């Protein structure tokens, strides 16, 4: 990116313009939604209007249930992600760097990754009982494979010439791993993390609907039991918005910082 553009972004006018551009699609979505619901084709219980949803949102925020549920969900997500990544990352490097362990784990991983995280719900309930323990387990199973898979791809695609070049500078195996393999796989690892969290999010809501008694997913499920359609939408939007914020302010900046600075990915991410 040119410096002039980068500078323009930090002027108040530039910032406002950028924000407006980012919010524009959402504004169009809300307007279309409002128009559609004011046609009164469906009863509100089947198609709640934005205004009803806003009212439900304010009520749920006021009573604290939304934030409590969101907190519960994010805790499961965070814990599930952490456990999944803590297993997947070392296993990935082990498989990527050691022929014997790759030959051993590859068939197992291949078999298990075809099984969706949600398919573990029955066992999750049997092992952990209804609650966040079961949900966390489901998230672990959902996060694990995208992280592992992306990491393995990263290790496989390290340019051999980079390894050979540092070897002719005196690098031993450990030097190659720390100075070439680790940094070279960082962008793939970040992609894996981002995908892992996205997969985890999906499983989170599904898991909570069936295997839990609190959390956002449970709140959605519960609202449906009482035909509180607006609250269903509040829950759904809470998930979507939480993801957007997390992606925009945590995941993307990290991904950007690594890939852009090294010129591994020249364009594409900067303006998104």
């Amino acid at each position: 990116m040119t410096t002039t553009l980068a500078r323009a972004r930090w002027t108040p006018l530039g910032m406002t313009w950028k924000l407006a551009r980012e919010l524009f699609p959402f504004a169009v979505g809300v307007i279309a939604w409002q128009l559609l619901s004011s046609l009164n084709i469906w009863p509100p219980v089947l198609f709640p209007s934005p205004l009803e949803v806003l009212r439900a949102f304010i009520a749920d925020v006021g009573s604290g249930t939304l934030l409590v549920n969101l907190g519960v969900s994010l805790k499961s997500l965070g814990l599930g992600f952490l456990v999944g990544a803590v297993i997947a990352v070392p296993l990935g490097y082990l498989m990527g760097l050691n022929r014997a362990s790759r030959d051993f784990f590859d068939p197992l991983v291949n078999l298990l990754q075809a099984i969706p995280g949600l398919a573990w719900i029955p066992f999750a309930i049997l092992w952990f009982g209804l609650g966040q323990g079961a949900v966390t387990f489901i998230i672990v199973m959902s996060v694990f494979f995208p992280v592992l898979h992306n990491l393995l791809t990263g290790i496989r695609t390290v340019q051999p010439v980079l390894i050979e070049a540092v070897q002719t500078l005196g690098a031993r195996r450990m030097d190659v791993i720390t100075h070439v393999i680790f940094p070279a796989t960082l962008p793939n690892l970040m992609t894996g993390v981002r995908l892992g969290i996205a997969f985890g999010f999906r499983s989170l809501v599904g898991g909570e609907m069936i295997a839990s008694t609190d959390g956002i997913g449970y709140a959605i499920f519960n609202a449906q039991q009482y035909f509180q359609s607006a609250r269903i939408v509040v829950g759904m939007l809470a998930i979507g918005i939480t993801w957007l914020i997390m992606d925009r302010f945590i995941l993307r900046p990290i991904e950007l910082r690594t890939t852009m600075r090294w010129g591994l990915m020249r364009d594409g991410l900067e303006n998104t």
Partner: protein
Amino acid sequence: MMKADVSEILVAREVSKTYFDPTFGENVHALDGISLSIRAHEFVSVIGPSGCGKSTFLRIVAGLDRPTGGEIRVSGNKVTGPGADRGMVFQEYALLPWKTTQANVEFGLRLKGVSRKERARISRRFIELVGLSGFENKYPHQLSGGMRQRAAVARVLANNPTVLLMDEPFAAVDAMTRQRLQEELTVITATERTTVLFVTHAIDEAVFLSDRVIALSGRPGRIVADVDIDLPRPRQWSELVRDPRFQHYRDLLTAKIERTGAHVEAHP
């Protein structure tokens, strides 16, 4: 075996290489009985038609490939794997994208445990030598192709290898930049008294740079000529192209290679 002359830094004895090509299930005979020796401070180029095994030979010297026959000795030690005494400059630059120019140049020194201060001193000298002062803190993607190759040369030189190996290092840059890099390389290797083994398929380039040019035949590569280049240094393209001796060497080598029935480019 005969006691090696101490000034013979690199000795290849009957080096052969046969690749097995699994897709066709056949053997590719790439190199056949290459024997040569290179003295300290000598600039030697290996030329030959495409596919004759030049890169294979250089990779065997670097220890990145194993010969199927024969052996390489550097300073008397048999080559069994890659090492810092044989630094290589690749056609693809092969700089680490996550390190700045300076960090790339200091990399080998860092592996050796050289202190930060000493590293900075040495890298500054070599960055200046290759004309990259002011670009110390740039990442490789912020440099042009020619600048990247300069950084790659500085990276290997800073590591003070016994032999500098170069595999068509200037093939990916434009013709004008290439000529400038060639001129700079002759100056740098003369001042540093570097021993160089340089691979190219361009006869002009080989004659311009070298004290000695070794020509290989088409596959399997065998030595068909070993010619001392007796041209004054420092060399400059503007003068050399008009020098009848330059043309003589070029024609001589072209004829030697053509006699083996292989096509080779006469111009860089």
